[in-house]
């Protein structure tokens, strides 16, 4: 038995026990004992953000680029409420986070004390699970359990609310190995009968398609390796959701691009026309399915997901397999190989011919310009000039995010951090900070829009303080581009509040923060400007002034099916019908 420790000491000891090397946080009255312990040790590095939302997004960037849980420390009341957007974001995108919040002392809970909020009540729907620790003796167990819950099964954020008196009181520490972690043990192995059904289906399929998502990346590098072996072995085409980019390399021969609302023509048509859909770690989100009653009408659907509630939620699945992607893929690949690696190769070759015809539509084409920088062009140049670098990309939310997904190629998992499910503007800058902390030597670029970027721009101070050379690549169209695009398509070109007035001078802003600012507005200067950004050893705010009214295509208008998608040259007026207009 170890000697008694204070609650604050237990917190730090438990974090070390869990292998935590970094905490993103912001101090305040109710967490001062924990901050005091942080001060007196050097194993765990604390990154002081400028706003608690930034701490959570930074932890998300850290978690998604490493596969390890991100850790956040905030104070009670406003500290906790500011963290809520980040936790909701992590819940939607299945990012493992452990958020520790301070709370007023137990004897004051319920008295409307200073900086008191019902944190466990408020965060119940935006965490996988949360705990209010009322007794220091339970603290170590709960923190270990929190890591267990955050990382097992479908990953997600958890919160541990720790009243200040619990941080001061003493108890004996229980190590990770002795801790009671509860009964929460999600199933990892797939049902053999369902796996056999899936393998039999793929042996018979004539128009098969892999549809993969963030679950492949969450399952770990082995899942991506198995996916590559499976896809390359079968020769089946593969598309991916926004969250799954990089699981299969963009340069791979079976890659047909991202699918969904702004996915490629070929990927969406392949989804519509396939006869076998292998959904792996993807959840049939509404950005993917479009109109549900016209979704892939002829296909047999196989779905592998660790979360049983993701199966049959939006789309009926014929062969559901509940389990971890890497485990199930391992079982599936082994069975398929054992049975002689059979596919209907002639039929699949014909299927590829059809896909090649769709690819020939060149759906990402845009009209180039010599006078203004097209956002697509900016991203093409960024891609060309950073190809082969040890590169991580984060994004904000909007048109730039979709263009980044379309025009940047991801060769490896964990290289692409974007807010998919929740669509959180302001995600990218703090996320880039978290990524750079985890990968100090890597090239970390946040592809941003000016409006999103402003939402958490205070975090530039964090980047400067910790000398994080994050590159803020802002595609500045002085518009809320995606809102403007929808208003053009849906609201008769009445651009209600969708422009950015009184924008700061980003170069001067960079100087004010103590970093480098670069502005570029001429396509001819773009390559040199990007090189200047890449060569600069510190953080850079790159103000790339782009074409103001460019729309993001291809696009499946809401309420429409995959085979009704719009390409750049199509007419855009009145494309969204009455039933589609109510959708977001």
């Amino acid at each position: 038995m170890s000697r008694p420790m204070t609650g604050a000491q237990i917190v730090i000891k438990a974090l070390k026990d869990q292998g935590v090397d970094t905490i993103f946080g912001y101090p305040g009255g109710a967490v001062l004992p924990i901050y005091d312990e942080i001060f007196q040790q050097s194993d765990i590095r604390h990154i002081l953000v400028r706003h608690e939302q930034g701490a959570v997004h930074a932890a998300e960037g850290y978690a998604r680029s490493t596969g390890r849980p991100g850790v956040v420390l905030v104070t009670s009341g406003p500290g906790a409420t500011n963290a809520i957007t980040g936790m909701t974001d992590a819940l939607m995108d299945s990012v493992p986070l452990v958020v520790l919040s301070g709370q007023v002392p137990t004897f004051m809970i319920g008295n409307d004390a200073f900086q008191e909020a019902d944190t466990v009540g408020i965060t119940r729907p935006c965490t996988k699970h949360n705990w209010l620790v009322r007794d220091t003796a339970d603290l170590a167990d709960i923190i270990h359990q929190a890591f267990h819950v955050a990382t097992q099964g479908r990953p997600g954020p958890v919160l541990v609310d720790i009243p200040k008196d619990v941080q001061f009181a003493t108890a004996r520490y229980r190590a990770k190995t002795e801790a009671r972690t509860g009964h929460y043990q999600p199933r990892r192995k797939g049902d053999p009968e369902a796996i056999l059904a899936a393998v039999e289906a793929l042996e018979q399929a004539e128009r098969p398609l892999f549809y993969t998502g963030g679950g492949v990346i969450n399952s770990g590098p082995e899942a991506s390796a198995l996916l590559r072996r499976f896809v390359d072995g079968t020769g089946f085409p593969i598309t991916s959701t926004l969250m799954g980019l990089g699981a299969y390399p963009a340069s791979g021969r079976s890659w047909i691009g991202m699918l969904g609302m702004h996915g490629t023509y070929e990927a969406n048509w392949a989804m519509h026309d396939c006869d076998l859909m292998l959904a792996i770690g993807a959840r049939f989100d509404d950005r993917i399915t479009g109109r549900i009653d016209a979704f892939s009408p002829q296909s047999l659907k196989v779905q592998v997901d660790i979360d049983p509630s993701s199966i049959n939620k939006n789309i009926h699945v014929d062969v559901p397999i509940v389990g971890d992607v890497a485990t199930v893929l391992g079982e599936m690949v082994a069975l398929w190989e054992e049975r002689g690696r059979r596919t209907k190769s002639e039929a699949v070759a014909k299927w590829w011919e059809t896909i090649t015809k769709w690819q020939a539509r060149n759906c990402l084409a845009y009209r180039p310009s010599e006078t203004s920088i097209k956002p697509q062009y900016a991203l093409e140049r960024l891609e060309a000039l950073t190809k082969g670098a040890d590169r991580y990309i984060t994004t904000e939310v909007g048109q730039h995010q979709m263009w980044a997904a379309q025009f940047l190629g991801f060769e490896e998992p964990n290289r692409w951090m974007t807010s998919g499910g929740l669509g959180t503007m302001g995600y990218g800058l703090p996320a880039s900070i978290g990524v750079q902390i985890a990968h100090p030597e890597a090239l970390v670029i946040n592809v941003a829009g000016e409006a999103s970027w402003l939402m958490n721009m205070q975090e530039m101070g964090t980047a400067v303080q910790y000398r994080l050379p994050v590159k803020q690549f802002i595609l500045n169209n002085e518009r809320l581009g995606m809102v403007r695009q929808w208003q053009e398509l849906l609201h008769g070109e009445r651009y209600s509040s969708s422009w950015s007035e009184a924008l700061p001078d980003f170069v001067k802003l960079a100087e004010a923060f103590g970093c480098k600012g670069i502005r570029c507005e001429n396509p001819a200067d773009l390559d040199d400007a990007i090189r200047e950004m890449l060569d600069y050893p510190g953080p850079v705010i790159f103000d790339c002034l782009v074409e103001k009214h460019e729309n993001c295509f291809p696009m499946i208008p809401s309420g429409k099916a995959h085979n009704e998608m719009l390409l750049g040259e199509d007419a855009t007026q009145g494309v969204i019908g009455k039933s589609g207009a109510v959708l977001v």
Partner: protein
Amino acid sequence: MNALNIKRGSTSHSAYDLRNRFEERLERHVLAVIVDNESGVLARVIGLFSGRGYNIESLTVAEIDHLGHRSRITIVTTGTPAVIEQIKAQLSRMVPVHDVHDLTVEGPSVERELALIKVAGTGEKRVEALRTADIFRAKVVDTTLESFVFEITGTSEKVDAFCDLMRPLGLVEVARTGVAAIARGV
């Protein structure tokens, strides 16, 4: 084509779509949810139902195993078959939930509800109330010269029927527990 013998390409069980929802039949299910008896667990379950727009027709909860810190929540809900499946999947993945039993599909089960019913009146109405209570095997648990409190146990329909009969006889107040249910046999 596959060992599970499921209809090919069916999207008719979609839980969230643009089609006319009335085409799908609503079913009533009784769920028994075994949870850790920890603070906030009921709020989690109720929050799931309200947050995702599921129905609760009745909900009862009480600790059933003091040493094991287990409670049993009995929920009566209605929804299309797809929604019922979602509810069960969403409940099952919650950290404090140990088991979710759908008593409606897992075989025969017994359902009971208890109600305390206050009826005020004198003369013939009072006599009729007592006579009806006898037919329903309701017990008198409190009486004054002008009132009775009846205790009745049975299915929700039986309690409904009893209340309906008491209304013209001077029904004043009703307290119902909600449904408790358990599978028959072992």
